[in-house]
């Protein structure tokens, strides 16, 4: 890393003297990542953010294959992160780990590593909610205090705000998440995996084959969304295309437009309901340039500030776990290694976080 990136913490934390080095481990799904940050005077500097992704050769994520990948790369990723940061393990002050939501076998790889480091070197251990981490890192890098949060990934599609020190979900998918819709559709029609090529999702590549549009099921229920009917209908039409590239392109284009328009509509509704002046887009699907452009346009239209996390931090990473772990640590939320448990199902709105508004 040529220049050290530093950010001022946009949330209220207890004042602390001296500096702290936090080591964060992410392993909830396809990514094994380690992030290292240094905290001083209400500022956070990124020392390292290294990750390795499991990419299935065919099909979707196979949990035990993914966890096998994490085990295989963990030593290398940790070593690279430490060397980038220019520190050794004994220099770490706090160990943070994502404990959920996620895939059991994957979660356990990170948890085991974090427990070990904590116990062996006697470092305080902090459990982190992966969904909260996606949002906190977005608030940090985008310098936002009270945004309307739009979290879109392979495992989540939700709109939230903070209120009374909790994240409150205003709307969410009632069935499959947006990322899952795009992945499943492209996989079923045989153009993925790989899902991402040169920073572009397979759906975007396919959508370029046509600019035409076919109406597909559009399901918005208040601020909630449902994508499963859309997926089924798109797959049925895709099968009828009989391998015709232009016809297939039309389905891809229509599927993407319909899904993104549904999301945009509930974002507008939530914006009206809450009167927030900032929109924060986080999660893996936040990397999608077509979606980002749409968000830039709505933000201009309503005269609100918009920030979308850039690809390096939009996808799963250790940095967001280290940073959220720091916030937890500053508020004294540490656990003993033997008390750390993973939770495959863990909701964003389950817990109170003292740094929230």
């Amino acid at each position, binding site marked *: 890393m040529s220049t050290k990136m530093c950010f001022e913490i946009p949330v209220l934390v207890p004042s602390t003297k001296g500096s702290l080095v936090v080591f964060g481990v992410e392993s909830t799904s396809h990514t094994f990542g380690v992030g290292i940050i240094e905290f001083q005077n209400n500022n956070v500097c990124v020392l390292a953010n290294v990750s390795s992704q499991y990419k299935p050769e065919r099909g979707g994520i196979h949990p035990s294959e993914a966890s096998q990948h994490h085990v295989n790369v963990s030593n290398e990723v940790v070593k690279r992160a430490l060397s980038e940061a220019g520190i050794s393990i004994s220099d770490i002050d706090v160990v943070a780990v994502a404990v959920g939501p996620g895939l059991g076998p994957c979660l356990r790889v990170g948890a085991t590593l974090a427990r070990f480091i904590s116990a062996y070197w006697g470092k305080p251990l902090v459990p982190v909610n992966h969904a909260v981490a996606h949002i906190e890192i977005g608030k940090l890098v985008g310098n936002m205090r009270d945004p309307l949060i739009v979290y879109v990934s392979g495992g989540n599609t939700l709109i939230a705000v903070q209120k009374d020190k909790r994240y409150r979900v205003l709307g969410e998918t009632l069935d499959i998440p947006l990322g899952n819709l795009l992945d499943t559709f492209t996989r079923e029609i045989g153009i993925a995996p790989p899902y991402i090529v040169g920073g572009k999702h397979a759906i975007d590549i396919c959508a370029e084959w046509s600019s035409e549009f076919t109406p597909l099921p559009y399901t918005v229920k*208040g601020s909630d969304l449902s994508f499963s009917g859309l997926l089924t209908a798109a797959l049925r039409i895709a099968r009828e295309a009989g391998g015709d590239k232009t016809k297939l392109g039309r389905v891809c284009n229509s599927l993407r437009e319909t899904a993104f328009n549904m999301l945009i509509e509930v974002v507008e509704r939530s914006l009206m309901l809450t009167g927030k002046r900032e929109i924060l887009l986080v999660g893996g699907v936040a990397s999608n340039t077509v979606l980002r452009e749409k968000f830039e346009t709505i933000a201009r239209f309503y005269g609100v500030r918009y920030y979308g996390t850039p690809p390096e931090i939009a996808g799963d990473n250790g940095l967001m776990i280290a940073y959220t772990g720091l916030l937890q640590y500053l508020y004294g939320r540490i656990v003993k290694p033997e008390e750390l448990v993973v939770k495959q199902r863990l909701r964003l709105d389950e817990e109170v976080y003292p740094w929230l508004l």
Partner: protein
Amino acid sequence: MASLSNSLIARGAEAEIYVADFLGIKVVVKKRVSKPYRNPIFNKMFIESRTRTEAKVLSELYLAGLPVPSVILVDEEGGVIVMEYVEGSRLSDILGTLPRETIIDISGSIGKYAALMHNMEIYHGDFTLANILFTRSSSIVIIDFGLAGYSTDIEEYAIDLHLMSRSIEALYPEFSEIFTKNMFEKYKEYSKIGGENVIRKVSEIRARGRYVDREVRKAILRERYIG
């Protein structure tokens, strides 16, 4: 209508709201607009079919005596509905400033009117605090039927109640428990279509959200299938 541009009072998620004078009566003009970031097909769908349904639903509810603005004029293609102006504040803005007893009364009225509306096989579709006006005479008026429709599926009714209870949770969590409880009670009292089942469906919908604890989900489903 030439002076409309000077009287824009609100910009909703899909429409612009103007105040105008019509035969000496103060009216609201709701004009659905095309959005630059929306596919033209959606623009057309949003404008035509939603205008038609909204006008129809509003008229039926008004004639049945429910507290909704009465429709005066409709232009489907232009996406315009002219309706009676209602003086009031959105509950999403002011609920927290009201006395506790008033909040409880409001929750009951919301439950009652939701039941009467659902009895007519109509769902609101965006039933949140932002779409309930609180008037000077301390009564409520339900507005914005832009996502409303007709259905006999109790799922749609349950979604209305689910949206309302989640909007109170997000905006005024301190009142959410009593509000939701009272709303459900009145709903059951006025429902003629099996209010119990609708309310059971609400917890089922909630359990469909991502990462709901497995035990919680199991308990809800058990109640549904085993009783």
